[in-house]
């Protein structure tokens, strides 16, 4: 079953001006229900534009977005309903916080859905649990939190709407490695527990490799590849031509495999590499010093 499907989706900025630019160009892809899809592409490849069309924030110049088989723009008046089903976390979402307390801010989405205060609060607390915001933080002003905490509060604000599809645009941008690991782990947990669809947009093949089941590669507004993460990682050459770099760990193991070592050439994470290298180390003992 496909939750989301795009048909020939196209978006052009500045139609009729000298600055006309087609940011998304005839993209036809399907997103399966319950999958974790990574969206990757170089700067300006149209990732942000594409995902903004998926929840009806911008209206396609041409083509369609189907949510559960229905065109989301069939009834433009009801586009808000689509936004509740397809939750969107923007890049640097911490700049959207505005309420007196963190809890109230997280409740903003649920309340817009028409939930009662009590229901909205329950949803908000549940969402705060996913992003591991401590109880005492919930009563603070959002402007008193640290950068990483603000980011997690903003993500909770979208999770609280309980969307069928959660889209995150570079959720880890500008965080230190620890903050980044934390947020990615929380998103993975959320995906595992809720079993709903997650789209993660990122520049970083590392982040995608660690989390995604499948990957969509965008290049100059076109959908270049869509397939299982491991298969995409096998296209190292093509990816680097598109300005994307394989994770360091993947490159290292590819080199080792090229030298004849029995390791996979599409490892996705350091953990995976660790388990592949461990037996070699045990077996090799002293004589493997060259590698």
């Amino acid at each position: 079953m496909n939750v989301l499907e795009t048909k020939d989706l196209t978006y052009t900025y500045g139609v009729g001006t000298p600055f006309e630019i087609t940011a998304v160009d005839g993209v036809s892809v399907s997103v399966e229900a319950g999958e974790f899809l990574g969206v990757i592409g170089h700067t300006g490849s149209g990732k942000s534009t594409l995902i903004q069309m998926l929840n009806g924030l911008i209206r396609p110049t041409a083509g369609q977005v189907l949510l559960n088989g229905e065109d989301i723009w069939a009834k433009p008046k009801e586009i808000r309903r689509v936004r509740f089903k397809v939750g969107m976390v923007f890049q640097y979402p911490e700049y959207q916080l505005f309420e007196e307390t963190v809890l109230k801010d997280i409740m903003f989405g649920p309340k817009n859905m028409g939930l009662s205060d009590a229901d909205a609060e329950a949803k908000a607390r549940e969402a705060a649990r996913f992003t591991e915001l401590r109880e005492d933080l919930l009563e603070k002003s959002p402007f008193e939190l640290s950068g990483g905490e603000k980011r997690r509060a903003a993500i909770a604000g979208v999770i609280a709407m309980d969307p069928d599809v959660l889209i995150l645009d570079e959720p880890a941008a500008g965080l230190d490695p620890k903050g980044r690991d934390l947020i990615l782990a929380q998103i993975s947990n959320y995906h595992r527990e809720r079993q709903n669809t997650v789209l993660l947009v990122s520049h970083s093949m590392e982040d995608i490799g660690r989390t995604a089941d499948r990957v969509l590669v965008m290049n100059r507004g076109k959908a270049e590849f869509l397939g299982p993460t491991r298969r995409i990682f096998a296209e190292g050459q093509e990816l680097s031509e598109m300005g994307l770099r394989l994770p360091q760990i993947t490159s290292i193991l590819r080199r080792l495999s090229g030298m004849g070592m029995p390791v996979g050439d599409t490892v996705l994470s350091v953990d995976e590499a660790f388990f592949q290298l461990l037996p070699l180390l045990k077996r090799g003992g002293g004589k493997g010093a060259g590698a």
Partner: protein
Amino acid sequence: MISDITLGQFFPGSSVMHRLDPRVKLCMTVYYIGLIFCSRNWITLALTVLTALSGVVLSKVPAKLYLKSLKPIWFLIAFTGILNLFYGSGEPIWSFGFLSITRAGIINAVMIAVRLVVLILISSVLTFTTSPTQLTDAIERVLKPLALLHVPVHEFAMMMTIALRFVPTLLEETDKIMSAQKARGADLESGGLAQRIRALIPILIPLFVSAFRRAFDLATAMESRCYHGGAGRTRMKTLHLGRVDYGVLALCAAYLVLFVLLTALLPAAI
């Protein structure tokens, strides 16, 4: 999208009007706006129209942009025109109840409308051909004598430069915040007045917070580069009057003489 709004839009180019010294352009604009409202007969009015049009042509900016800059004020022009239509004195040509139109009223209405259009065109020539930095530079130089009266001219000019610089940034930011809140189901389009105003809160608060953050960052950045106001500050690009500038100034002077003569010799239109 909100960023479609263009404000004091500069249109880069290399026409004569672009190359003219911004101080000269600024003074010329103020001077012509003064003349527009002093023109009392058809000949002088036609003359100002002609000057405005030659400014438009010389700027080499597409006519479409000038029409666009007129668009938001068509209503104002029509409104003041129609109001003036009923305000003339003398023999009524047409009357209906307490409303009456006189010859003087018609002439008045036409004159006002033409003056407003010329006013917009002339100021558009200035803003289209002068970058915001050049413009504030010019304002600072022209107002410099006021510094003797302890008016902080440099500070005002700096404030204006910074404000202009941040207009597009803030518009972009507003766009982003609006998208983010819409994604959380904020309803900005429906409801009564009170509800709409309340719907602005989730947009205005983050916008103010970020504007203050930017302001503090900018202040720190300026201070760490030893900015301490205008005293003793030299410029990277000093303005020099060239031959064209002197020529234009001479033309303006000649124009003034002609204008005074025509106004004195010809009868007023009303």
